């Protein structure tokens, strides 16, 4: 898609037009003429016809929300998801804590421990959705593309603090096995065709 229409800021050429507003009448006779003109120009009936036409055409522009839903963009920033590696199905998160550090509303809490293989493992990971402002910084800062936003926006809760746990965010293993995990295209995602731009690391130092 070309961006020409967005980059062209010179809207006065093609976008604006001058509305013709006559001066207010001052003399009594002019005022009278205006009243008569307005009375016998049948503008009110134009308005009536417009709404009646919409009623007859019956081209409704709303959707019955719980049954139908609007498609949302792949970059939409709704409730978070935690992704798995395609190669091993293992969790991507390395427990670096960057997301906790950058979160501007302080709603991520992460704790790690050393597991039996002497590797760092996430033991606690919660996001307080009541405070999250869905800014996307956590997804952007994550070096492993582990935490991303998802498309689930129906997150009403009966309490102010609504915590999202690590297990809820993680892609279920059976979904992963079926190859149904979707990569997030928004904040922090790899730009398309990144492979072609990667340079070989010079090894001969």
């Amino acid at each position: 898609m070309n961006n020409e229409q967005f980059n062209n800021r010179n809207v006065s050429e093609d976008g604006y037009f001058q509305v013709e507003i006559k001066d207010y009448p001052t003399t009594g006779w002019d005022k009278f003429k205006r009243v008569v003109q307005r009375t016998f120009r049948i503008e009110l009936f134009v308005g009536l016809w417009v709404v009646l036409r919409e009623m007859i055409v019956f081209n409704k522009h709303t959707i019955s929300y719980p049954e139908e839903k609007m498609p949302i963009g792949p970059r939409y920033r709704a409730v978070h998801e935690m992704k798995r590696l395609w190669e091993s199905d293992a969790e991507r998160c390395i427990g670096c804590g960057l997301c906790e550090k950058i979160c501007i509303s302080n709603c991520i809490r992460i704790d790690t421990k050393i597991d039996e293989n002497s590797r760092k493992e996430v033991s606690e990971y919660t996001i307080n959705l009541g405070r999250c402002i869905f800014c996307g910084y956590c997804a952007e800062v994550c070096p492993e593309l582990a935490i991303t936003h998802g498309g689930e926006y129906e997150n009403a809760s009966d309490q102010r603090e609504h915590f999202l746990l690590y297990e809820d965010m993680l892609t279920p293993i059976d979904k992963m096995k079926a190859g149904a995990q979707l990569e997030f295209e928004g904040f922090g995602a790899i730009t398309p065709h990144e492979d072609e731009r990667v340079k070989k690391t010079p090894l001969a130092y």
Partner: protein
Amino acid sequence: MDTAYLIETVIKVVVILLIFSALAGIGTYFERKVLAFMQRRLGPMYVGPYGLLQVAADGVKLFTKEDIIPTNVVGRIFKIAPVITAATAFMAAAAIPFLPSFTLFGYEVHPIVADINIGILYILGIMGVGLYGPLLGGMASANKFSLLSAARGAAVFISYEVVTGLSILAPIMMVGSLSLVDFNNYQIENGWIIFNMYGVGFVAFILFWIAAFAETGRTPFHLIANDHEIIDGFGTEYSGMRWGLFFIGEYANMFFISFVIPLLFLGGYGDGSFLGALALLGKVAFFFFFFLWTRAAWPDVRPDQLMWLCWKVLMPVAVINVVIAGFLMMF
């Protein structure tokens, strides 16, 4: 006054009360649907098929809601005000012939509670009394929005009521009677009043129609309870069924005015045949629909604009109309 007459009248009163309370409810459903369709929406869809039972849901809500009497209100007046609106709306219906008389089980029924000889005067008078609902409710509410609404109500009332009275003067001069049944019989012989006397009837019809919008407080003149300026005006402090009574009164009023306009100007129920009755119902449906239609299409005017319109435009036109009618009848 014999017993049969008494029983008949009581039955008629009950039937009219029931039918028009129900109609007021169904009227709100139609209003929502028509407005929704005109604004390219669907309107109520979830309670019952196509949202038809929405009225019942509203009723349950209104009846079971707590009846709050706020502190600082003038209690007794605050409580009685909605009753005035609803009661006067139905009282006005007593002089309206809803259908031509018909025979039921060999008994002739006149679908009018009382064919009094001052019919139209009575109807307009009682509808005028109905204004005490908003006026007293607004003044007793101890709320500034309600007070504003009451003040507007009083100002608007004296403006449009003059136009209403003067506009029907010409038809009354033609017919020579105030009873709506006489109006109907006159129109059987002489044709619809709006076509009578070289346009005098038509001008009277337009004036009365405009005044009817002010009378019922519908959209171009919906300034007594204008939601986007003064919340709900006189209804702001009301809750539950008391608010519901205001609502029923308003919608019943719309229906009754929709009956009065065709009876006065558009030939009424005609010669009393079944077709004539159907035609009357069709006309009523059109006028009711028009109330909803304008609400979707037209903006509201300011109170000063309404008063300007009534005093400086409509009243002179009405007076001239009456004078012309007088001359036409003289020669």
